[in-house]
């Protein structure tokens, strides 16, 4: 446990002493801010129109009309940005030879992997936490459902965590950071749109493809429904990716 902490602290420090974390967080916030602003603007204009009609006025829901699309947009930004955050984690160590220091030190491979994973989660939490501050405005001038918003953020965090795990895996495969980022992005996008293939699939395949699709599991969370199936999906996605990372690093033994 202590070793995980040592590795994690070092990685977080590296993220924040180099420009990486600041650039990732800033760009993320600018984009989220823009999406939030346009969603609110659209919501306002809808609200004014619907106010003419008492029936429609009842239907107005800030969670559905602002947060659901916002969460969708945020998930796509994460899909684009997290691979850039994780690409260096192992690739850089291999390139500069520092992996030789790590793996000749009395720490377990599992501890190194979890430390790095944790460090990237900290950056992800900072991204989402700061973006969450935008919600203050909606609470000041509106009455959104807090639980639904929290569910959305939890969903984003879990999804981001599985992106990071995948990024860690691809980073362990190569010395080249760009290659790691592209592979991560490609694989995640493929998983994202897997449910498109389910339209043409039949029988059990339809269910399997649907279940494997990242997108499918996020849909519920944006509207505030926390389904254990989805939580289990993201956790097992992360676990599986971390397990593969471990296998890749251990396989130095057979090469």
């Amino acid at each position, binding site marked *: 446990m202590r070793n995980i902490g040592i590795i994690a602290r070092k990685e977080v420090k590296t993220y924040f002493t180099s420009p990486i974390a600041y650039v990732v967080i800033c760009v993320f916030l600018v984009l989220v801010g823009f999406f939030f602003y346009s969603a609110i603007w659209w919501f306002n204009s809808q609200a004014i129109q619907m106010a003419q009609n008492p029936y429609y006025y009842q239907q107005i829901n800030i969670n559905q009309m602002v947060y659901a699309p916002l969460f969708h947009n945020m998930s796509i930004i994460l899909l684009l940005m997290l691979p850039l955050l994780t690409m260096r984690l192992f690739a850089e160590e291999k390139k500069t030879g520092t992996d*030789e220091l790590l793996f000749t*030190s009395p720490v377990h491979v599992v501890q190194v992997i979890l430390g790095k994973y944790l460090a990237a989660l900290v950056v992800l939490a900072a991204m989402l936490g700061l973006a969450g501050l935008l919600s203050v405005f909606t609470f000041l001038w509106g009455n959104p459902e807090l639980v639904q918003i929290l569910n959305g953020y939890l969903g984003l965090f879990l999804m981001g965590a599985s992106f990071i795990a995948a990024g860690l895996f691809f980073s362990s495969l190569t010395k080249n950071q760009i290659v790691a980022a592209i592979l991560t992005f490609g694989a995640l996008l493929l998983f994202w749109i897997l449910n498109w293939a389910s339209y043409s699939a039949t029988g059990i395949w339809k269910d399997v493809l649907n279940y494997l699709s990242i997108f499918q599991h996020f849909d519920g969370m944006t509207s505030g429904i926390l389904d254990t199936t989805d939580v289990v999906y993201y956790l097992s996605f992360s676990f599986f990716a971390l397990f593969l990372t471990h296998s890749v690093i251990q396989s130095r033994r057979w090469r």
Partner: protein
Amino acid sequence: MIEVEHLAKKYGELMAVRDLSFTVEKGKIWGLLGPNAAGKTTTMRILTGFLPATEGRASVAGFDVFEKPNEVKKITGYLPEVIPLYTEMTVSEYLTFVAAIKQVPRSKRKEALGQAIEVSGLASVKNRLIENISRGFKQRVGIAQALIHDPQILILDEPTIGLDPAQIKEIRDLIKSLRGEHTIMLSTHILAEVTQTCDGVVIINEGRLMASGSLEELTTSFGGKEGIIIKLRTGHDEAVSSFQAIPGVSRVSRQDGELTVEWVWGKDLRETVSRLAVERGWGLLEMRPVAINIEDLYLRIVSGGAGQ
């Protein structure tokens, strides 16, 4: 302290190390000598637990490297060929991190850091970013990180490569000062490094063991020679043939008025040679011993193949 038995490592089809056995005694500095691509780095990586061996056994301080890797890692300091530096950190930050992952208790880290900085002469750069310090200092940071947890065993892969002569001397002196408390194994392809710093040597070539032992043992067993260089005023031609006639002398050569007389190791002929020179009245001006020529030895061993 370090025991290696029938070690072999295969990278796919390539045999990097085969049937390698040697031992290093406690408190000694041992050189791992061989030309480039001889398997030095591979051997060291196996000893430090970075790579597993394909066959054979290696143990460090009684712990098997494959069965108890963490025990070995705790008592071993390792300087890889490529110095593992996080260049975005300062020297102190980096060494503190290394101390932490080498399991130096939190309360002792400061002390360990101070000691490592002092021993490796890093005081003037300790608060600078590693990316901004010179090659020589980087090498010292590399040695400091190997020393930080006060390991019993030090494994140094080419510790003086890429340094200028003054820095090489400093690093060698530093390594020599660690003799006794630490058992040190250093790899090199430079012979002078072995003769100047090491107590013994393991010579490998193409992954095979060529020879191992203390320097004297090796020189003797490989038909080493000793001799003198003698400077005469007159009678050089006569002297060459007369010296040649002395029983035991293996070779006499002449170069610019100086004669080199060599004989088989252990047969001290200095007295005979000097008496002869005085008796014949050649005017003995100077006499000095010839150093053990390990270069000859090395070249012979490396080119001779496994048969020798």
